[in-house]
């Protein structure tokens, strides 16, 4: 018998004796105030995400301010290009890392800077030296101000965490109200063929490990910019 069978055997043996439900102190009166799947009730219990796009954008903005995400709600792809150009000058970008994608392809070339694309492999040291990683994303989550990326929508696993600045491009239609909707959308979108990495990014990288004082850019990006049009 291998370890797998031994462990499963011990579990089955242990579970022969039933445990009482949460909140039940042996009197058969468990709390049992909840049956079913948590996702069904999540919207009633968790912080709300908003019903209309305007409400959702407002929540995303509030969360972003607190998280120190630079969130910009724009009106056209031209505005995205001009914002990007302004950021490039302001931050003094010299090299840009990105990936092939519907939005990145329309925007990044206008910068006129040397570009490293992660598609088809890349040199980690070169990527580490880039000033910014510009990626697409799957969804924006209003409830928490999160960006949902996968290694398919954001040029791999490293592009969104290795450069010191992460810039996300998204369309207004990519906004969803909450985590429950985001997870359900991902499941519907990918079926059983999931990307091997699915990540909710909520603000720039941070730590409070020294005297609980917030410092941005612990290991991941110091800056997170989200441009939505």
């Amino acid at each position, binding site marked *: 018998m291998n370890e797998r069978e031994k462990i499963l055997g011990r579990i089955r043996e242990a579970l022969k004796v039933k445990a009482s439900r949460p909140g039940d102190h042996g009197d058969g009166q468990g709390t049992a105030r909840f049956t079913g799947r948590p996702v069904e009730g999540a919207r009633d219990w968790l912080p709300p995400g908003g019903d209309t796009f305007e409400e959702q954008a407002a929540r995303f903005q509030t969360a972003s301010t607190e998280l120190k995400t630079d969130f910009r709600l724009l009106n056209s792809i031209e505005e995205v290009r001009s914002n990007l150009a302004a950021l490039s000058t302001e931050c003094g970008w010299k090299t840009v890392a990105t990936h092939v994608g519907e939005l990145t392809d329309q925007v990044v070339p206008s910068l006129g800077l040397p570009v490293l694309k992660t598609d088809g492999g890349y040199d980690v040291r070169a990527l580490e030296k880039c000033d910014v990683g510009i990626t697409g994303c799957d969804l924006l989550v209003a409830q928490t101000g999160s960006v949902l990326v996968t290694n398919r929508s954001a040029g791999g696993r490293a592009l969104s*965490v290795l450069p010191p600045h992460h810039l996300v491009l998204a369309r207004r239609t990519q906004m969803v109200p909450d985590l429950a909707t985001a997870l359900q959308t991902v499941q519907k979108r990918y079926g059983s063929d999931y990307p091997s990495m699915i990540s909710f990014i909520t603000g720039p990288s941070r730590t409070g490990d020294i005297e609980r004082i917030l410092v941005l850019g612990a290991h991941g990006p110091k800056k997170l910019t989200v441009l939505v049009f």
Partner: protein
Amino acid sequence: MSSSFQQFLTDATRVAGDIRHRGLMQTALRKYEVARDRKKAAFSDWESARDAAAETKWEAINHLDEHLENLAQKLESRGTKVHWASTAAQAREIILGIIKSKGACSIIKSKAMTAEEIHLNEAMEKAGYEVVESDLGEYIVQLRHEPPYHIVFPAMHLTRDQISELFEKELGSAPTREPEELTMIARRALRSKYITADIGITGANFAIAETGMISITENEGNARLTAALPKTMITLVGLEKILPKMEDLALFLPMLATAGAGQALTCYNTMYGGPRQPGEVDGPEEYHVVLLDNRRTELLADPEQRDALHCIRCGACLNVCPIFRNVGGHTYGTTYSGPIGSVITPHLRGLQEWKHLSASSSLCGACTETCPVKIDLHHHLLHNRRNASASRPSFFERKAYQVFAWVVNRPAIYRIAKQCGRILDPIRRAVQGTVLDPVKPWTKTRDLPPMPEQSFKEWHRNRK
């Protein structure tokens, strides 16, 4: 008295009187409390969310065999190698085996309490490998050759000056009082380690049975990098970390963040479903998941305390515990400290050796009240005390209670005893604290109230 009890008493006495430690804990935990309360208030209904989390974990743990089989099958179907380890030694052997077979020399690690539990770093270092902790707090305590102080805040016992001195000594950096600069020193030191590491090791916050995914929650991005750059990735996961469905994360991710660190959501919440898949641009070529039992199945076999396996390791019970706040994390001498550590350590490492942890509690119930998955923590401390004395009764205690029972069942003798007490009380008070004091162990740290002038019975009689 076990040696771990002796150590607990010595350290608790020292730390409880340390003003500097008290200040650090107060600063850290006050900030936490303010943030946590604010984020809890943003929930429409925190209590219902707790009920749902408790029921969901109950379902997961009480069908653990089915969920684990699903998890393993789904992980394997996408090219992940799943290993099963009954003991800490087996888990270490499996991980060292993988490292050896890869001809690896340097290893980058992100935070994993399970790795602390099986003393993985010591084993790897002893075998001659360089292991670097990448979480800032863990990196700091690693440089100090210490275990983490807290499940979630590993370096909460250190001031910025201590950290600056440490970096000056170990990394040759210039002294600074700025947390930001200190963080950047660590960031620079660790960047090259990521790029050159052959193996990345992580822990896990949740294992999703339905889709075969490992979910990792972190703020710094160090686990993201650990899972992106090295060619081989290993995740060590306790088998209780199971969640039935991916969508369950919609509840558990915000609850973990709010209860654990007072955040709406932790910065990076990432699900890994395998090694680099065809058509993907980066990621490890090999992904190994090690499922760890290490006596968790023994805890599972105790239906009364089975819910201790619901724990999501948020650390909330440590933060509110008056004992933890006063004696600190290292005093426990265990991997898991605070109320949850006091409950599970006797199961994981032996009841008689660790029963004192269950006695070191005011039974105030703050832990039970704060637990996001509603583990009945303070009752379990009582269960441990009961089990410990039932399996090895104390001769002295038994005799004392026999004498007590004999006296109180005989009203005449009880009256005499009471009178004697009243006469002798002033004498005992005069010798309090000296070697002549018969209850010195008690009065050393507590007051013994004076005998009242009138007993309840006397008062009742006079009333008529």
